């Protein structure tokens, strides 16, 4: 038995204080295997020990909430008529940095398991991605392209094979992610209220089944791995890379749903991070029971595996099922129908222990609840808040705006992401009625006959300059994207991607962002149903920009309300809801054209934002709107260009932007919030203007949709004419040209 030297303890990421706590819990020294078990369960990834105190600030309740965040693998939200949705977002950043294809693929597999563990049938996925700059010939740029290509191919590989459409997401490219890409994957599932499955080991004497892929040495201690900074050394921890098998997961998915429908299941839990360890002690803890398993009975892929390796393995596509006593035969038949490896590995008992035997030898004996729920919690120190100075316009020369628009459209973060979503099967399950490439995706859930809208958003430059404001805006933009499709926001999942929380400046960002998200979710009436925290996102160059990704889901009450972002008919009136704006701080114009991240992000006025969104929703639901598009990165000019170009057949536009400034760049590219660009039939223009006026929402007619092959804009006394095919080329070919020269 390996003796526990301070080095070994430290290597497990266990501090001396934590080790003391372990000795108190056990009333003795842990053995080597138990140390491993504590180290994964008490890693940030599993225990949220550095972030839990902050996460408590999220609003988690509401009339539609059926299962609260944290209670189970994913929250559950009522969508009416006895139907509910379970959804969640998770990160697989570190594995993807080491092996982009498999890292991203297994990330998708993991989030899908979280959803069907709840008893829900997964119906669609999204992904929010961040990479370093992919432009240029530097080795770094080449690495970033390799990571980008690998991650997208890995997501496509897993999602396409298992047959769950990937219908939306976002991709940004920025130096702060060089060497530390972000891969946040989202999945949503549908279920009946009465089908909600619990991850509790209930029923003393119930047998515990293992089902799915055999356990191998892959992904050893991945949870611990995800909770450390990426150093050259950790890149050497390569056995930590898991390989996904979407085919196995498809069988596991169908088998588990059939199993849950059969009524033979007392509890079910996927084996994700910390594999067998986490699933046994968490089910026991939730059930207020004990669980005893024998590792000799666990199906294995490799010989000579120690209990330590078996318990800490993160082999994919595995589940732990607590079966109602007497139903074993029925359960076996279902596993055999689906050709899945399985074994009865243990039993639920009443002593509150997580006990792991290797034959007759007891390898682990730990009070389950203390292991699962009594991880230490840390209130880290936050640096004092200091905001950067506001953008000094006089020090910022006005760029050649005629050249600036195509340049912005060709910036990889703004350019069309068709190269990405074309590789994803977004049409399987017959739901994608608004395809990727519009504001939010809109999806028909056939089994429930419900229509959902979904979007992921986060502008990390805003968050870098002011994490609180940036986080608020992430929620507001997601809600705005949802509103543009004619939908009503329901709830939110989030993925908090930050640097090392031990550094006060990083912890400040975490606290500010969480408080910003919490406040905005309150105001938009969208409770947080769950999410994921990924810390230690640092490369030798430093921490990433704070990136609290928001995934929001909304509901469309009538197919007639479904609205897309692109112009439809020549002669339609183009209307701006909200004010023309004048805030250039932290904008993509300043980043892409002037090469800096400078100034403060735009201010979010909740009342204005809510009025704009509700006004647009009412106009849409009154059948007055042809297209609706929110203004985000690149401001009004980019929004106009996208509305001209993103449809099946491009249309021109002639508009005059009411000047708020003597500078054209401010008028064209400012990123002031609470702005939505509409097109409406000419005959209905006055009705729309009246409707919004009367609701106290600023609104004005900008111009007209034209058959012309150009975008004509008057701003700040200047007039610009852009040939559409030039803009279109810049926007559509930017990413393909970089990835496939």
């Amino acid at each position: 038995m390996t003796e526990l030297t301070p080095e070994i303890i430290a290597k497990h990421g266990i501090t001396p204080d934590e080790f003391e706590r372990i000795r108190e819990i056990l009333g003795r020294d842990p053995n080597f295997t138990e140390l491993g078990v504590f180290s994964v369960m008490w890693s940030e990834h599993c225990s949220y020990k550095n972030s839990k105190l902050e996460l408590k600030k999220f609003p988690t309740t509401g009339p539609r909430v059926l299962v609260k965040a944290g209670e189970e693998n994913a929250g559950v939200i009522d969508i009416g008529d006895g139907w509910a949705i379970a959804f969640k977002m998770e990160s697989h950043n570190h594995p993807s940095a080491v092996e982009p294809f498999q890292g991203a693929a297994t990330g998708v597999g993991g989030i899908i398991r979280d959803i069907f563990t709840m008893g829900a049938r997964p119906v669609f996925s999204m992904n929010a991605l961040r990479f370093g700059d992919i432009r240029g010939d530097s080795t770094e740029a080449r690495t970033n392209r390799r990571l980008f290509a690998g991650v997208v191919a890995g997501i496509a590989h897993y999602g396409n094979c298992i047959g769950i459409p990937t219908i939306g997401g976002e991709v940004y490219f920025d130096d702060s992610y060089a060497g530390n890409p972000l891969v946040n994957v989202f999945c949503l599932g549908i279920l009946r209220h009465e089908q909600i499955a619990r991850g509790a080991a209930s029923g003393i004497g119930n047998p515990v089944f293992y089902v799915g892929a055999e356990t191998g040495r892959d992904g050893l201690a991945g949870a611990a791995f995800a909770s450390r900074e990426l150093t050259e050394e950790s890149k050497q921890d390569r056995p930590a890379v898991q390989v996904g098998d979407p085919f196995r997961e498809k069988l596991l998915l169908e088998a588990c749903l059939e199993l849950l429908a059969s009524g033979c299941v007392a509890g079910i839990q996927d084996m994700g991070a910390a594999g067998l360890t986490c699933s046994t002690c968490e089910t026991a803890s939730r059930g207020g029971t004990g669980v005893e398993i024998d590792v000799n009975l666990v199906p294995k892929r490799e010989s000579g595996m120690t209990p330590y390796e078996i318990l800490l393995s993160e082999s994919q596509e595995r589940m732990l099922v607590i079966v109602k006593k007497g139903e074993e035969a029925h359960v076996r038949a279902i596993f055999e129908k689906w050709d899945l490896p399985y074994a009865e590995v243990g039993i639920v008992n009443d002593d509150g222990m997580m006990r792991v035997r290797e034959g007759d030898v007891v390898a682990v004996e730990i009070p389950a609840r203390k292991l699962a729920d009594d991880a230490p919690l840390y209130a880290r120190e936050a640096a004092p808040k200091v905001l950067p100075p506001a953008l000094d316009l006089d020090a910022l020369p006005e760029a050649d705006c005629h050249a600036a628009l195509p340049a912005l459209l060709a910036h990889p973060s703004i350019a069309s992401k068709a190269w990405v979503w074309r590789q994803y099967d977004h049409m399987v399950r017959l739901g994608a009625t608004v395809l990727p490439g519009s504001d939010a995706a809109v999806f028909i859930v056939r089994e429930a006959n419900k229509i959902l809208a979904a979007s992921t958003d986060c502008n990390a430059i805003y968050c870098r300059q002011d994490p609180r404001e940036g986080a608020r805006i992430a929620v507001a933009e997601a809600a705005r994207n949802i509103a543009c499709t004619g939908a009503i926001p329901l709830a939110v999942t989030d993925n908090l991607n930050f640097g090392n929380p031990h550094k006060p400046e990083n912890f400040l960002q975490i606290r500010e962002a969480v408080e910003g998200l919490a406040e905005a979710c309150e105001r938009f009436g969208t409770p947080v149903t769950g999410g994921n925290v990924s810390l230690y996102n640092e490369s030798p160059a430093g921490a990433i920009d704070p990136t609290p990704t928001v995934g929001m889901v909304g509901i469309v009450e009538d197919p007639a309300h479904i609205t897309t972002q692109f112009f439809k008919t020549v002669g339609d009136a183009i209307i701006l809801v909200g004010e023309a704006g004048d805030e250039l701080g932290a904008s993509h114009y300043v980043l892409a054209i002037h090469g800096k991240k400078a100034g403060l992000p735009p201010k979010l006025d909740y009342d204005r934002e809510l009025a704009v969104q509700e006004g647009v929703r009412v106009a849409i639901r009154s059948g007055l709107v042809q297209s609706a598009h929110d203004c985000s990165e690149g401001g009004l000019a980019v929004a106009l260009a996208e509305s001209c170009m993103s449809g099946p057949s491009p249309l021109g536009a002639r508009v005059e932007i009411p000047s708020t400034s003597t500078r054209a760049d401010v008028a064209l590219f400012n990123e002031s919030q609470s702005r939505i660009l509409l097109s409406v039939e000419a005959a209905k223009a006055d009705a729309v203007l009246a409707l919004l006026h009367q609701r106290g929402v600023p609104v004005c007619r900008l111009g007209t949709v034209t058959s012309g092959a150009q975008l004509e804009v008057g701003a700040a006394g200047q007039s610009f004419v852009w040939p559409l095919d030039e803009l279109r080329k810049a926007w559509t070919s930017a990413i393909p040209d970089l990835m496939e020269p």
Partner: protein
Amino acid sequence: MKALVTVMPKPSVLDPQGAAAAEAIRHHGLEKVGRVRIGKVIELELPDGAPEALLHEISRDLLSNPVIEDYELEIVEK
């Protein structure tokens, strides 16, 4: 000359394709088949005297993924 690069999944790494093939082979009448592993072969036609060091570099960095695969380089003079 010619080079043959054989790329195989590392022994400890899951090879779902190999596992599926093994199943199919059993159904095909070879019940006793043991482990099946699937890799790739890359056949390169080369100018004579292509530097072996470079070939190794290419095999490692381009043709295989060292994180999950091992490669073998065989040079066939003719």
